[in-house]
């Protein structure tokens, strides 16, 4: 049985909010930190809105939601993270910024506390090296949207102690997630395969092999995938794919991870994603897939 520790979430964007939902829903006191107190409070507002939908759909009662949200605190003061047994960082993908955040957390959190990064592309070992506690540091990559997806890719850094990794694994398990162990390798498992695969699909369009809709039809029809690569790219955002390419190709040099020229042209033309009604495909509505 894992103790009910306080979980800190550093970063209040989409991922941070989703992770905070997972933490609070699983019974853990949860502190949402952002350098901007207003953004942290906005994230808590989004959590309330998410749980209100859960009540509407009969998944939770209002009393349960009140209890869950009673465990949640928003803060703009990093010192408030002191009680956290585990802090999961979910800020933007920049090594030095993450490093400064963890160095600050190291000054306020006790030596027995664990740190985790939700990075999808950066090296856990390199972030951990800036944290002041690389032996108590793990990678915990939640999938988007974290509040709905069970999978968490967990990676030890080179200096992570087996005990720390095991503790973090148990906490992840206690949060109701399904951890899988991966090496601290660029892109871990998901992005290691997905980013090049999507690039390959873009290159088929670039080379005139097939139109985007035909590529999606082929992949869905042949393999039973719920979405084709072009639909998925439009959902994730073509600008996001560029960033993923740059991060992965930058560290691996893998040709398939390099950004296809067509992708850059699409971004330049502001054909960014489904939300903007124009990516590789055209959309008459911007309703979220599956909604």
């Amino acid at each position, binding site marked *: 049985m894992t103790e009910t520790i306080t979980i800190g979430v550093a970063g209040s964007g989409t991922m941070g909010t989703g992770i905070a939902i997972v933490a609070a829903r699983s019974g853990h006191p949860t502190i949402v930190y952002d350098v901007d107190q207003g953004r942290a409070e906005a994230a808590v507002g989004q959590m309330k809105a998410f749980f209100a939908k859960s009540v509407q759909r009969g998944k939770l009662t209002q009393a349960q939601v009140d209890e869950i949200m009673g465990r949640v605190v928003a803060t703009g003061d990093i010192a408030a993270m002191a009680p956290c047994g585990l802090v999961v960082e979910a800020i933007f993908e920049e090594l030095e910024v993450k490093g400064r955040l963890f160095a600050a957390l190291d000054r306020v959190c006790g030596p027995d506390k664990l740190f985790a990064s939700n990075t999808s592309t950066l090296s856990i070992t390199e972030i951990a090296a800036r944290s002041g506690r690389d032996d108590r540091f793990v990678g915990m990559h939640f999938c988007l949207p974290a509040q709905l997806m069970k*999978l968490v890719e967990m990676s030890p850094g080179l200096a992570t102690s087996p005990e720390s990794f095991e503790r973090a694994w148990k906490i992840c398990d206690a949060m109701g997630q399904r951890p*899988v162990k991966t090496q601290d390798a660029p892109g871990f498992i998901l992005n290691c395969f997905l980013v*090049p695969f999507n690039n*390959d699909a873009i290159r088929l369009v670039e080379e005139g092999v097939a139109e985007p809709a*035909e590529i999606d039809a082929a992949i*869905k029809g*042949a393999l039973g995938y719920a979405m084709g690569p072009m639909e998925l790219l439009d959902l994730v955002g073509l600008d996001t794919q560029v960033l993923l390419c740059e991060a992965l190709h930058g560290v691996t040099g893998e040709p398939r991870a390099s950004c296809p020229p067509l992708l850059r042209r699409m971004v330049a033309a502001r054909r960014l994603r489904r939300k903007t009604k124009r990516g590789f495909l055209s959309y008459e509505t911007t309703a979220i897939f599956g909604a």
Partner: protein
Amino acid sequence: MSHRVIRTGESRSFPDAHPLLETASASGEVLVLLGPGAGRALAEVADRTAHTAILVELGVECLGVHTGESRGEEGSNVLGFARFRLGDAAPSDLVEIVHQPATTPEALAAARALFQAAGLKTAVCGDFPGRIVDRLVRPYYNAALGRLDARLATAADMDLTLRLGLGYPEGPIELLERTGLAAHHDVTAALYEALGDRAYAPARRARVAKARQSEGV
């Protein structure tokens, strides 16, 4: 729209009974050439213009091998097709229809209509090695096998991650085990030969499986 089927040996696309075969007639607007000799059968068609479309079952080769090519302006009422199939697994419901730059729209529409009427899904692509699906999945499968060798994760965890994280029905390793690593070797080796791209070079585990198959192990 009526169709006639000519078999030239065992078809990878239609190895068993199928509505497309059962609804065929002795003559038809669409001529379907099945089997490894489909290209040769095309050469024997006396009057190609008598058909709205002539559909040639392809293996790993391009349609241009059978029709000839000319300055990027080739194309007629002859199309290629293949039902996507992994190794010895049953064919999928997906038919890739291969057109050339000047393929007639009527022929393409007839091909789509024929396959869809038989309950199949279609995707249209140009005349390139690997068409759509093999072009996309073979580098992915090779990468998965390579990452397994590199100990990125266990086979079970890689499969689970792709299933949970992306909603794939099967992970890459379990899929290759089910459909045959040696068969993957054959397809990806042909693509490597055709495209010269290292991403298609058979992964070590595929080469081992092929060697064992060749030795009858």
